[in-house]
């Protein structure tokens, strides 16, 4: 009975959040720029949540998110330009290409036991490698933007006349990613990942096949980011090697860390707060003083990391027992 009541209060709360998320674009629809901003925030939310699988649960500091995003974008975009293939299929193919690349890199990386810092730096270098490679590969990439064929409001080409459908598309992906994240953290794989994230040697000694666990996490992560990449390309309407952005990849990982590694809703919370603040500052003061919004953003980032090293999601975990002391107590038992 108690459990049920607990469940309903949380359920109502989540339902309210979802309702707010669903209504937001309808309220600000008159200004498409604002819809784009909100969509960007959500986009980072999905990426950081997906990153949580490899970075938060498995403790592998992956800095290659925009490599997978770029691969997804280029796969879907090129198929659309060359063969007029609908992005709805290209999206899946983009995800698969990203997975293929992740496996190509991940298998030797994990086989040679590259860990921690060196894993982070390798993945960071990968983004730059792909950027240069796609700039030099004139058939697919090249230094000039390739525009996707323009159809206003064509469902087949995933081109809509406003940003609102993209918002809902990314919102649904966010829900799927959150659900997946939660599911994984409750399965055997999730516990294995948490164990090896804490101490890889200990997990190995206890019989966890760390290599295959890490690979599984990498596959989930790269597939989601690859799919996001295809949507990203269609939202902006072009593909360009600058999609392989090392700086932004680091940002995604930072969101995951600041949000709270391994906490399902942590990265999303960090994305909503930090990217929200950044985009708000950029929109309000970017035109007057270039760079000032980044200074403020960087200071907020450093302060948050210094004072909440376990993640800002832990603030909520601290508050929860204070608001509902009875339920938190029952939950512990």
């Amino acid at each position, binding site marked *: 009975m108690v459990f049920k009541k607990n469940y309903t209060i949380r359920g109502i709360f989540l339902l309210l959040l979802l309702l707010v998320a669903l209504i937001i674009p309808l309220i600000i629809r008159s200004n498409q720029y604002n819809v784009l901003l909100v969509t960007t925030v959500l986009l980072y939310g999905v990426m950081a949540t997906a990153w949580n699988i490899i*970075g938060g649960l498995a*403790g592998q*500091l992956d800095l290659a998110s925009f490599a997978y995003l770029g691969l997804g974008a280029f796969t879907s975009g090129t198929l659309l330009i060359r063969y007029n293939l609908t992005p709805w299929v290209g999206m899946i193919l983009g995800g698969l290409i990203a997975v293929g690349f992740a496996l190509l890199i991940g298998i*030797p*990386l994990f086989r*040679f*036991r*590259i860990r*921690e*810092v*060196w894993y*982070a*730096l*390798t993945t*960071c*270098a*990968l983004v*730059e*490698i792909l950027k*240069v*490679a796609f*700039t*030099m590969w004139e058939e697919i990439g090249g230094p000039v933007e390739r525009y996707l064929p323009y159809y206003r409001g064509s469902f087949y080409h995933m081109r809509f006349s406003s940003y609102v459908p993209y918002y809902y598309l990314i919102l649904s992906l966010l829900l799927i990613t959150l659900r997946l994240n939660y599911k994984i953290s409750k399965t055997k794989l999730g516990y294995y990942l948490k164990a090896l994230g804490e101490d890889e040697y200990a997990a190995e000694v206890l019989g966890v096949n760390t290599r295959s666990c890490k690979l599984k996490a990498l596959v989930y992560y790269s597939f989601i980011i690859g799919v996001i990449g295809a949507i990203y390309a269609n939202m902006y309407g072009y593909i360009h090697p600058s999609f392989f952005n*090392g*700086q932004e990849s*680091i940002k995604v990982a*930072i969101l995951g*860390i*600041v949000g709270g*590694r391994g906490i399902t809703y942590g990265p999303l919370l960090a994305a909503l707060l930090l990217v929200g603040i950044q985009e708000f500052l950029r929109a309000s003061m970017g035109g007057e*003083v*270039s*760079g*000032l*919004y*980044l*200074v403020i*953003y*960087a*200071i907020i*980032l*450093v302060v948050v*990391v*210094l004072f909440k*090293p376990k993640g800002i999601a832990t603030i909520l975990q601290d508050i929860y027992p204070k608001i509902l002391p009875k339920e938190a107590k029952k939950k512990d038992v």
Partner: protein
Amino acid sequence: MEIVIQNLFNGILMGCIYALIALGLSLIFGVMNVVNFAHGDFVMLSMYFTFWIGSIWGIDIVLTPLITFPLLFIFGIVIYYGLINRTLREHYTIQIAVTVGLMTFLRAITQLVWHAQPRAISYSFIQGSIQFAGYVIALSRLTSATISLIIIGCISFFLNNTWPGRTIRATSDDLDAASLMGVDFTKTYALAFGLGSSLTAIAGGLLMTFQQVDPTMGLRFGLLSWCILALAGLGSITGLLISGLMVGIGESIAMSFWDPRARSLVIYLIFILVLWLRPRGIFGRK
């Protein structure tokens, strides 16, 4: 053939400066195991300082490290006590998050102060070039490489023959044993961090003699010095110098024989291959 030799010269001269930058990173990472993502942005910052001092006071670029060296040393110590010291006990991802925050901050502040367009100073008394058996060598690069070598030699002497240098090496070998012998590790760490960042002041000044600076170049220098560090492994300055030369030569050859855009591609590919095949580096100790 002549082009190959010319490229070798250029690569070697560049490699000396790269080794100097990587030496700073090696001090920081080797001693306190802190991953400094902002190292490349320290180089960028000192290049801007050089530009500022050079263009406001008209001091020649080669002499600016006399001012920027202490400046960056103090900067490094402030950063150490303000940020790094607080996160030493945390998970390594937290240290990375803090240094990434620092990196973003430095990039933003330079963009704010000096705007996004590239900056360069044109005058220095080492401008021009010398002819040597039919090969052209830019005087600025030759001087920069020589100064880098001298500084690397000085640091090597400092680490081997002086008391503070020995404490740095002892702390890097075994923190607990060094602490038991009465080494104050906080001060040693601060010294290593300050020294590591002040080395970028010299490198930045030298780079300014033939390059321009813009706020986004930090990540490239950062990854480059990590690549040299991966090649060299920890604990060997000679290894670091050789790795720097290898990277410099590889970059120079790739630029003229393959594609000018391929310079970073070659460096990163070397980086990944070395990590796969020899994770402790070619000259690594452990």
